[in-house]
């Protein structure tokens, strides 16, 4: 399974924002690219960081570790993780939803794919 990680930046109301979007599955084989993108973003001092996992079909514990590391680096309230379905569920089940700023998009996920 291939995985695509892209980083895009924008500016809104004078705040610098960055989004890391992941399409595919995040596991041992594909996590290096995600981890490296997270490190670059964390080092660049953006006002708001968003990780868009809505098109990501699977994450493992290593991916949770990257999200937690990113949350710690960017500081409280500045990270939002958009996720839906099983990916949102595992973030919630493992008790880190609040720490990583999960925004559960499952409602639109379900109708969007039906």
């Amino acid at each position, binding site marked *: *399974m291939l995985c695509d990680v892209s980083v895009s930046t924008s500016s809104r109301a004078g705040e610098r924002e960055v989004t890391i979007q992941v399409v595919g599955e995040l*596991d041992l084989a594909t996590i290096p690219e995600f981890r490296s993108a997270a490190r670059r973003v964390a080092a660049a001092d953006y006002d708001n960081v968003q990780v868009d996992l809505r098109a990501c079909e699977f994450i493992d*514990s290593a991916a949770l570790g990257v999200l937690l590391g990113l949350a710690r680096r960017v500081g409280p309230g500045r990270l939002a993780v958009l996720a839906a379905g099983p990916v949102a569920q595992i973030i919630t089940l493992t*008790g880190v939803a609040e*720490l990583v700023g999960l925004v559960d998009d499952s409602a639109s996920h379900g109708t969007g794919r039906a």
Partner: protein
Amino acid sequence: MIVRLTIPARREFVALARQVVVESARRETALAPERLEDIRLIVSEAVTNAVQAHSRMARGHSGPTDPGTIDLSCDVSDGRITIVVTDSGGGSEVPLDGPFEPPDASVGRIGGYGLPIIDMLSDELSVRAAGQGTRITVVINLDGQRDVGRRSAANGRSVS
């Protein structure tokens, strides 16, 4: 139903292992979609641990080395699905008898979530030294609901 799979101990094969076991379980059981997702994550974490054990062992050698193989089986019988992952990666870095506690994320520690996640999502988990490596055995009851933490709360650890 019995599935047996031997894969190279390479990170590119973790996705294949997930796919084979989840598709088998989907065809052979009436498990709810969220339980199939639990199995997907369980297999991924167990096989990832095995691949990483082989990688650690390979780093101890100079020059190109054969990554070795990982054996995976999935049996459905007596109302249970049993997943066994056996590596020959030189032994586990975790205490074999648990408890498989997740790290405390609130104090900023990351990593080490693999076995705690398997423990949380399954009905039984055992981690044993086997030959030149480690064998992880996971049991999921087919009639069970997803109810995270039920074992720990009800009757303590069922590590056997």
